[in-house]
């Protein structure tokens, strides 16, 4: 039994427009939630149901009337009378650019990847019509940590969505994964940038493997296209915990 209710004031319901369609929603929901509830598609990469949204990947950018800057729908809250547009040539251009930059920055070779055919980045590229990268590839050598007995972390395929960091902290509570460095030098690391296999905090729960959108964190021993991931459990766990307090 909960000792005190979470909030005395129930969240207000507001009305707004998404793509001209009248929509009402709670003010503590995100524009992304509201769009999806109304069958309006907004592409995402770093978002995963059950994890806190951080607006990192910029794929869900939307236009809001009266705001100059594009806003990430996953962390944007609705307000009364708001008018949101989720699709325009400008948004398509930006989203495609985001995907191109991700492909140019990492070393993504879909054809030989364990996650080929089951990859959120690859799927996003196809959905957004990104069929070639107009930028020069970065081709920076990155490390592969195979020290864990069951899992592999291949930094070449990491897009810094931090789903692993969030699931490890928010759901497992182990805080093994973290981010170090700034800008182009940013990296996802285990513990204090130590070998994963020697981690004293990792519980081996494999939640990071499941939530990783690409082939960056995977099971050992998988061949090309063999890594299939199931992620629904994160949202289920989160709901269950909220119900049980």
């Amino acid at each position, binding site marked *: 039994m909960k000792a005190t209710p979470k909030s005395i004031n129930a969240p207000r319901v507001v009305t707004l427009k998404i793509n001209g369609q009248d929509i009402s929603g709670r003010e503590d929901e995100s524009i992304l939630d509201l769009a999806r509830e109304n069958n309006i598609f907004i592409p995402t990469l770093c978002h995963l149901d059950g994890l806190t949204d951080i607006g990192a990947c910029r794929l869900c950018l939307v236009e809001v009337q009266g705001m100059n800057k594009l806003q990430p729908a996953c962390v944007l809250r609705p307000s009364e009378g708001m008018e949101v547009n989720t699709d325009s040539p400008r948004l398509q251009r930006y989203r495609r650019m985001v995907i191109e930059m991700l492909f140019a920055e990492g070393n993504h070779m879909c054809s030989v990847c364990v996650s080929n055919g089951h990859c959120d980045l690859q799927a996003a*590229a*196809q959905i957004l019509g990104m069929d070639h990268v107009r930028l020069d*590839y970065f*081709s920076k050598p990155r490390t592969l940590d195979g020290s864990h007995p069951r899992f592999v972390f291949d930094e070449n395929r990491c897009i810094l969505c931090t789903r692993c960091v969030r699931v490890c902290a928010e759901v497992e509570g182990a805080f093994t994964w973290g981010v170090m460095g700034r800008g182009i030098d940013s990296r996802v690391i285990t513990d204090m940038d130590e070998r994963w296999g020697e981690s004293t905090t990792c519980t081996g729960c494999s939640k990071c493997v499941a939530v990783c959108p690409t082939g960056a964190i995977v099971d050992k021993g998988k061949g090309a296209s063999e890594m299939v991931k199931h992620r629904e459990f994160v949202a289920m766990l989160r709901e269950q915990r909220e119900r049980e307090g």
Partner: protein
Amino acid sequence: MSKAKVATIWLDGCSGCHMSFLDMDERLLELAEVMDLVYSPLVDFKDFPEAVDVTLVEGAVSSEEDREKIIKVRARTRLLVALGDCAVAGNVPAMRNAFKVKEVIGRAYLEDDLTHPQAPHIHVPPLLVKVKPVHQVVKVDLVIPGCPPSANIIHYAVTELLAGRTPDLSNLTRFGA
């Protein structure tokens, strides 16, 4: 009406895209009614002809020879098609881009315990510092991702191009397909 002139070339790739081309099987006979294959690793012509209508390029641009070839082919082709992930995105050949050419040659020819470790230095074109997708060297008119793109995709793309249309392949193929 004269037949369309179609060519295929093979740069740094595994020939899988050409195998996929051959997988069109009996449809190749239908294509032969409307096109002539004027240059290809599959036929024996010594020099790349002038005024080719469509050229399919398999493979990434990896060596000095590849670079010279693709510039010549571009100049002599109306519609240049990057066929497959190596041509479109670098793919496996581009995995060496994270290393220096000297390191790559060393790993392949010198580091192993060979009787006469020797890097190839005559009769082979020098490698470029970076492997590049075709569109980063010359203008490309159509990209067909896939590793390899299926025979169906190639057939669809070629027949559309020969009919004077630009095929939309976004729902049919993707990187790694």
